């Protein structure tokens, strides 16, 4: 019987070998030869990506970029001192050093800035990261921190943002400013816990009048530096002012393919929204926040929703006109690929002021107070062409009740693995001077950027 089956197999082989071979039949791939550098597969032909160089190897070389940014204001009536929103050359160096499972990472920038007329170096990241236990990650030092579900809308992400970079059109990574923080993450089956302690308050990089103009309620006009916005900074003496730090908490987990999260924050308004009428200075009032988010697939896209309650600690019933009232924030967003290479994202964002009546009754200038609810709709369109080397992007904020808007069109061209170029604009519109985006309306700018990466 065994012999019979062998005969069958041999017979079948003979049958199959004599069968005619189709004209389009491919050659069997080379299964015999060892991988050798040959033809276009040769190592030399792959440019600067030799196999030996891997991010995961023990020693990693220095990486970074050199970047030139130039931005021009479009409105000649802008009261800023300079006509340029950007004129700088930036160098970046980064590296990581591994010690078993832990590592140290450094990202350092050196900027020659013609708008502020100075040369300054700074660490964008400089931290140690390790895992004291198998379920805990610890990151200590200067780091970039992000959470929440909004697209350029932040409800529970109260980590510092650099609005000057964003409005000027610097590379998007500069929207997030670094924090000197300790981040502890505990992973477990019920809910992962993220705890971030920032011993010294890290405010946003806000509009001071130096690079961009803004609306001053005192002068009831759009103003710019000099003088810069007078801001009383928080005491940052660790011995005396330990309470001036920030603590942020996130609990998060997945249920099926939906991600939920609960957020808490204890700290301060990230922009100097308080006003001291006796000194004429602004300052950072205390603020606590609580919120939650949910994100997951819906139809062919991703839906996200998030809310937050920002409690104004020093003005809980909203009767102090110099301190912002507590506020509810709500977000609903959806993103989907409309057609090949074209993605659409839409968001509805609501901010509602608590105890609004108290604010209006106590305000010395009720007519320039913000409206009780600010509705904002955002739209993102991204279109990729030329093997994704050319990226067309449009992002816009529009508030139908405050009648103001902010539109950011941009085109990014990735010429090679090293060179990329971007140009775009930041256009602000508003019927009134005092609204959130309307106050920036003289800052319309056009920017361009060239980057060489290595």
């Amino acid at each position, binding site marked *: 019987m*065994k012999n019979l089956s062998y005969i069958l197999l041999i017979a*079948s082989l003979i049958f199959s*070998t004599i069968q005619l071979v189709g004209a389009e039949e491919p050659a069997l791939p080379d299964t015999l030869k060892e991988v050798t550098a040959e033809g276009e597969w040769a190592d030399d032909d*792959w440019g600067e990506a030799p196999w030996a160089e891997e991010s*995961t190897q023990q020693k990693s070389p220095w990486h970074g970029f050199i970047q030139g940014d130039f931005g021009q204001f479009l409105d000649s009536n802008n009261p800023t001192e300079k006509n340029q929103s950007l004129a700088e050359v930036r160098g970046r160096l980064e590296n990581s050093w591994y010690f078993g499972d832990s590592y140290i990472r450094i990202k350092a920038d050196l900027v020659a800035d013609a708008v502020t007329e100075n040369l300054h170096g700074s660490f964008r990241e400089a931290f140690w990261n390790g895992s004291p236990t198998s379920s805990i990650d610890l990151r200590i030092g200067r780091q*970039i921190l*992000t959470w929440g579900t909004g697209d350029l809308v932040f409800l529970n992400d109260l980590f510092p943002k650099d609005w000057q970079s964003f409005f000027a059109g610097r590379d998007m990574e500069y929207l997030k400013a670094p924090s000197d923080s300790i981040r502890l993450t505990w992973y477990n089956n019920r809910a992962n816990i993220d705890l971030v302690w920032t011993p010294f308050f890290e405010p946003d990089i806000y509009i001071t009048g130096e690079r961009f103009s803004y609306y001053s309620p005192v002068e009831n006009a759009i103003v710019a530096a000099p003088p810069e916005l007078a801001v009383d900074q928080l005491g940052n003496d660790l011995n005396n002012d330990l309470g001036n730090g920030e603590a942020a908490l996130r609990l998060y987990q997945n249920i099926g393919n939906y991600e939920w999260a609960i957020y808490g924050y204890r700290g301060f308004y990230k922009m100097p929204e308080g006003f001291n009428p006796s000194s004429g200075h602004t300052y950072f009032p205390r603020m606590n926040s609580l919120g939650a988010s949910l994100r997951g697939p819906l139809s062919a896209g991703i839906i996200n929703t998030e809310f937050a309650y920002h409690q104004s600690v020093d003005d809980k019933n909203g009767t102090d006109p110099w301190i912002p009232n507590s506020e509810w924030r709500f977000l609903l967003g959806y993103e989907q690929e409309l057609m090949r290479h074209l993605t659409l994202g839409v968001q509805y964002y609501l901010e509602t002021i608590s105890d609004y009546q108290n604010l209006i009754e106590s305000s010395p200038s009720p007519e320039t107070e913000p409206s009780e609810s600010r509705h904002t709709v955002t739209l993102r369109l991204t279109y990729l062409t030329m*093997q994704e080397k050319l990226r067309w992007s449009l992002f816009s904020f529009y508030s139908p009740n405050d009648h103001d808007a902010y539109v950011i069109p941009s085109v990014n061209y990735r010429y090679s693995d090293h060179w990329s170029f971007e140009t775009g604009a930041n256009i602000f519109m508003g019927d009134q001077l005092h609204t959130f985006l309307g106050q920036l309306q003289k800052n319309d700018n056009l920017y361009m950027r060239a980057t060489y990466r290595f």
Partner: protein
Amino acid sequence: MNKTQNETFAREMVLLSGKAKMRTERKFTSVNDRLSTFLTPHGSKMALVQRSQNIFQKFIRSIPGITLAAWVAVGFATISTNASAADLTDVNKIVNKANLAAFYSGADGRAETRMQIVDSQGRKQTRQFTILRRDYINDGKDGGDQQYLVLFSYPSDIRGTLFLVEKHPGGDDDRWLYLPGLDLVKRIASGDKRTSFVGSDFFYEDVSGRGLSEDHHKLIETTDKFYVVLNTPKNPSNVEFVNYQVWIDKKTFMPVKTEYTDNAGKIYRRIEALQVKTIQGFPTATRMKVSNLRTGGYTLNEMRFISYDLGMPADIFSERSLRNPPRQWFKRPAAK
């Protein structure tokens, strides 16, 4: 001889042989074992898959009290239809095996990959990344859900970017992208899987596989080396092709060439496996080329430092790994 005739013949042979059912079944098992060993000379999971799914075995078992003589009859019947006895005739089995060979080798796997993207003017771009892949074995079916974690290392603008995928064949995948510069975990709409993977001529679907249930499959030819399968989409509006034809290596079940035809009847896209190496018993396409025949552009894809069955835990495919890529698994294994 059609199937009914075969069965009648088989029953007659049973009566003639008069042997005990148990004993003969054991013999069939041993013959079929040898047959599958012949098909896959390397003792591997694929051999196991074939053993359990062998068409002859299933056919024979569907007939009560069958004997080896009956199997012989069936075998001759197959040969008389002008195909090899070892050939599969069920196209679903063929495409299933091809899917397993191309995307499901081992329970998990790691590979360093680089792509060279060449446009119609000969301008080149490079992408270099390490892929970790893990199959959900506990769902009881191979060819099912998988997890992918991709860490980019070159060029420098995407260095440190990670891509996490929970693949659900037949449904929408869950995909996340981590942008280290912003510390941003971005969820990506699964949407169209037939869009470029990181700017290359490869589509997402070419990297992680196309759901078998999305096409009608037809075995149009069995040559001495290949099963040639024509695939027609069940929902043509979802895809840019009218159909695609795959040449599947009969020995390894590796899809060696795939050609896509547009509605003008022209072949406009081709994927080729240009080098297949056997790694830990699994045939693996280590060099692939995707050609865009309309523009003349193409992408070369080469994989090295491949290993399978490393015992990856499920929890490394998580948000934790996006912020802290698990070096234990991404690290290139020491040379053996």
